[in-house]
């Protein structure tokens, strides 16, 4: 049986070892002088790009009103059933508003389906990734925590209009 030559057999220069060491160290030194990618996290915050899916938030218009009309599509599409919406009637032109809008952040998987399905562009993924709770109750975010002024969400909305 013919002996098959292994493709990974080392060449002569590799066998003498030192040139390879020099090559490796060259890469090390090159990266030593390159700018750093790591962030000193708690002190320096990571600011994600608009495509980032942080925690979902409700869009609050400039007049302090939510855009949401409580159609319930986000709650329906939510794979882990994190969202609960209870609608009610208002005297305003839009007729319908969410009297209760809760996202259980322990259930949320940040898939962004709610944002995708929303017909009113009322729920979007924010850049907030800092989520910590000390109890299950705390993890349920109500309207007070979800409503976010629209000027903080402009780049995400722009991104959505471009790519959604």
């Amino acid at each position, binding site marked *: 049986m013919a002996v098959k030559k292994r493709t990974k057999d080392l060449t002569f220069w590799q066998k003498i070892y030192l040139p390879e060491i020099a090559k490796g160290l060259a890469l090390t030194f090159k990266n030593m002088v390159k700018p750093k990618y790591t962030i000193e996290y708690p002190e320096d915050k990571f600011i994600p790009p608009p495509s980032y899916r942080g925690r979902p938030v409700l869009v609050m218009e400039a007049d302090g009103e939510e855009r949401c009309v409580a159609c319930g599509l986000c*709650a329906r599409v939510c794979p882990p059933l994190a969202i609960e919406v209870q609608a009610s009637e208002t005297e305003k032109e839009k*007729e*319908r508003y969410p009297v209760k809008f*809760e996202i259980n952040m*322990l259930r949320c998987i940040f898939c962004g389906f709610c944002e995708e399905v929303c*017909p009113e562009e009322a729920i979007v993924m924010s850049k907030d990734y800092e989520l910590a709770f000390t109890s299950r109750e705390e993890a349920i975010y109500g309207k007070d925590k979800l409503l976010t002024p629209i000027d903080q969400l402009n780049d995400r909305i722009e991104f959505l209009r471009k790519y959604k």
Partner: protein
Amino acid sequence: MATITIDGKKIEFKSGQTIIQAAKDNGINIPHFCWHPKLSISGNCRVCLVEVAKMPKLVIACATLAADGMVVFTNSEKAVNARNAVMEFILINHPLDCPICDEAGECKLQEYAYDYSVGESRFKEEKQHKEKRVPLGPNVMFDGERCISCSRCIRFCDEIVKEPQLTFVQRGDRVTIVTYPGKELDNDYSLNVTDICPVGALTNRDFRFKSRVWEMSTTKSVCTGCSRGCNSDIWVRNNLILRITPRENEKVNSYWMCDHGRLNTFKNINQLETRINGAFIKEGLSHVPTEWESAYRKAANELKKYAKDEIAFIGSPFATNEDNYLLAKIAKNFGVSNLDFMRHENPAFGDDILKRNDITPNSFGAELAGIRPGKNGFALSEIIQKINDGKIKVVYLLEDDIAESNPEAAEAFAKLKLLIVHSVNFNKTTDLAHIIFGAAAYAEKNGTMINFEGRVQRIRPAVALATPDKSLDGQKLSRQDKFGTEYDSWAQKNIKDALPSWTILMNVAKELDFRLKYNIAEDIFLEMSKNIDALNGLNYNILGELGVPVKDSINQPLAKAL
């Protein structure tokens, strides 16, 4: 028999039928907005346009009589184009506010837009604006912009209720619906217009914005508002009944249901404050919650203290046949012959459409199940008399607020030594009671009821109880109810600790040394079908969704061999 060909399928039709009726009878669906099987033909929506061979123009299927040998195409290029055009026309002035509209999810226009529309509009101009949120009556809200002017609601008031209250005003795209001057949509059947409205123009004011359609579970049940026993669907979310809608049954209620049945038959079931959770025993002046077991024991021990002729058992026309049958059986076995139930007649309630003067759902069934005085026993009026005389000291009462509807009885009940009551809510009768058992409401248990015509119909559990029903039918639960955990704020399950009356009776009987073994309500019904001629050979499967008439329902059949 004459035949007609629809899309290559040969079907038979009765003479006088229109194309759409012949198609419907054979399971072919031709899209329609304004046509309704029970209303006159209007032919204004034009969405049922079909092509008929050798006819020069398209015809509307709802107003064209089927003729022998007719060849109809519902999906030919011409028909499809016409349908698309009609949909585009209808959608010109229809607002795109489905996220707000309550009808979304059960909207005919939404469905047809998916099925038959091209998906975009060429109309760039401003849509016609009309009045929104007009209360047409105490129960119905009208949204002029959403209306597609099919006139179903107008025809319903004219033809079914025979009380013309609605009409069109204006013409063309400004046409809208108003009530006649000085009138409002306040007939007893007004909420049916919200069902037949193909869009969200007419909505139920009681249900508005409470829930989306797809978030609720539906359970086939029977209305308990009167002895008609209209077939209904119970819509439940978060273990609360949110609305009741009629279910088609040609033999009972057709497509309709009265407002009373829709609005007043479920609120007491939802009311957590007045619901009886568990069993209560009177100590001093107040009722103290007790373990079920000790309440059964106490009831049995107290019952044993009295002579048989000092005891009266009172059944209920609100309870199911199974509950009443078991009460009668226990009374017989225990030797109590004072057995009766109270009839509730309200001569002002009935009409000649659906509503009946007998405002209980099951008086026929209570009688059939054997709730009537035994040998030497007394009927209800005599029982009350005997209580006043001090001859009867104990009453065992099933699910009926007799003290409320009969002041005489209330006075008499106050004199009783022992009053044991099964009840869904706290009421005047439970105030007088010594032992109270929390009974499951009709929407929480399996069972049967018999309407005034003698039709046996099933009720099914729509709302979950702390002790689930063991029947193999299972129970329909909305997605939220199914998957909610105790940690989810939305899963406040509102679960009540009540039991079906037959379970309570069975457990009390056990303490009375009368062992009964029923696992599910159907076990009792099967025993009834063996012992009661009128129910011979019936089981829950045979009753199905629409129920069956009892045998020989003209001669009031009598139970035998109890």
